């Protein structure tokens, strides 16, 4: 987001093309213009095309020249489609990702098939830049809740409080390809300092798009901020059982950035069935996904235990 300056009320960076601060609604400072009139003057607005008088036309919803029909524009808040401003580089090569998958398949434990790592074949490996926002904020969180602390006759007693909250690079996913829990496992291990303004060449890479406009993005980030505030407030509520937790946020210096994060989506085949796995694009140690269990091995454990229990029960009953 190209930053002009900061809002004088809440300290949040202002975005180009905004008329008001997106966080606290204070008007953005006007771009410096010439001095205003010293005395009142009457102006006739002219059409740039033909010089006839221009009036606002409600049907065209724009200033329109009645003579030649040309339409002028009014300055309003821009609402462009969101685009990533920082692409994090792939630090794991495709071959390393394949190896990482094989290593992961071999490390899943005894209940998996013995030949899982050796007999699986990778059908497809897609480098994927998935997209999301991070936001930084310093907020004042006001909360109320009922908890069991200090309860009298009722199980519940009311509590309230106000606590500061600082969030740094809090992630909000905009990805359609990855699920929330997958994003959560990937999120921690990205190095945001290494971002480039454009994606570097990567064969066969898919780049996700935000598919949302700036105004929609702000609503999503606002909801994420409120959810974080509630989570933050929760740790200050005394007692062990909590209900009716409400949190209100007064954000300060809320800044949002748009990122594209690298990962590999792998489809591998084991005994004619396809499974999906994800390898982190910057840290090959992070691998997760779906993998088959070995029914034979599970039965080999469960059946003897069941038989032993049955034998024990039979012995105790017959005694």
């Amino acid at each position: 987001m190209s930053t002009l300056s900061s809002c004088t009320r809440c300290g949040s960076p202002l975005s180009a093309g905004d008329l008001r601060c997106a966080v606290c609604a204070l008007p953005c400072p006007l771009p410096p213009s010439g001095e205003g009139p010293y005395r009142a003057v009457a102006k006739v607005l002219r059409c740039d095309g033909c010089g006839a008088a221009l009036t606002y036309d409600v049907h065209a919803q724009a200033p329109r020249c009645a003579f030649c029909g040309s339409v002028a524009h009014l300055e309003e808040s821009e609402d462009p489609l969101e685009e990533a401003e920082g692409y994090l580089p792939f630090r794991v090569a495709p071959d390393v990702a394949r190896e990482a998958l094989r290593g992961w398949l071999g490390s899943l434990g005894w209940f998996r098939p013995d030949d899982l790592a050796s007999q699986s074949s990778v059908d497809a490996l897609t480098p994927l830049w998935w997209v999301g926002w991070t936001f930084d904020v310093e907020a004042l969180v006001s909360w109320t809740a009922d908890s069991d602390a200090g309860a009298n006759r009722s199980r519940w007693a009311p509590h309230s409080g106000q606590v500061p909250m600082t969030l740094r690079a809090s992630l909000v996913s905009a990805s359609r390809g990855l699920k929330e829990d997958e994003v959560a496992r990937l999120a921690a291990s990205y190095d945001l300092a290494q971002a480039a303004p454009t994606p570097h060449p990567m064969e066969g890479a898919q780049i996700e798009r935000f598919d949302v406009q700036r105004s929609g993005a702000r609503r999503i980030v606002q909801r994420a901020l409120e959810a974080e505030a509630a989570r933050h407030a929760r740790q200050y509520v005394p007692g062990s059982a909590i209900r009716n937790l409400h949190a209100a946020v007064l954000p300060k210096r809320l800044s949002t950035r748009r990122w594209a994060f690298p990962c590999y989506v792998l489809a591998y085949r084991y005994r004619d069935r396809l499974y999906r796995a994800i390898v982190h694009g910057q840290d090959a140690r992070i691998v997760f996904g779906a993998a088959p269990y070995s029914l034979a091995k599970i039965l080999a454990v469960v059946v003897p235990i069941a038989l032993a229990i049955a034998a024990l029960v039979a012995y105790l009953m017959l005694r």
Partner: protein
Amino acid sequence: MHAMAAFECQSCGARVEIDDDRRTGKCLYCGSPQVIDRPPTPDRPSPTFGLAFVVPPERALEIARGFVRRPLFAPTSFRKAKVDDVRGIYLPAYLYTAVAHTQYSASIGENYTVTETYTTTVNGKTVNRTRTRTVTEWRDLSGRHSVFVGDHVVSASRGLPNAELESIEPFDWRAIKRFGPRLISGWATEEASLAPRDVADAARREAADAIGARLSRFMPGDSHRNLRWQTQFDHEDLELVLVPLWILPVRYREDRPPVRLLVNGQTGQVHAKTPISWPKVVAVVVLMLALIALVVWLVTEAR
């Protein structure tokens, strides 16, 4: 009150006289739409933003005609009044935003159930029974609540009181436009006749009411009562804005002033203070009383 100032028409050079409380006018000789640019003063700032007309005049007329036909207790002359005069004006208003720090206190109701034993008589025998009853325990709670409050609108015109403007709110502030002469060219536009300090208290009251509604949802417990709050507003901002209104005078009787009907020029929300026909009200009340009397008579006769 109605001071005029003379300007020179940029199109034909003729003398154009325009009221001091207007921001636009028209040259009588060539019909050119004039937009006045006055040096701002603390009491009469320049508009920062405006909302544009979205509802066309034909639609405003339709909405108004539908509205006058509705009220049952209005005089028949009102419900049949011809509505064909429609004027679009930009009304000056102040847009209020602030940081609200609120100190609140309330009684929070926490429910619990008690099981009690009672005796009752069943088939002539006395038996013991139990039942559960929900009891509310009231606990005091106080605290602080801090949020941004925004987009409260207060009329900046002496001609149109704030209560009347409220009747056709809300406006959609997402469609806000930077004020410029292009927005108002060709449209009647009023200058602010109230200064920011004249409306600040009304704006704060509106914001404090909104805080009350938010606090009511913010309270924990199963219920609450005696909610009291005191809000301190910081970093207040009042911006002069222009909002689009369609005004339609409804003339329904020669001897009465016309009723002013307003249509929100952005959303189509409509309102007017409809006159009440007292003969109609009396007729309906009498009819109801007669019906009740008839029913009572029928019932007593039937016995």
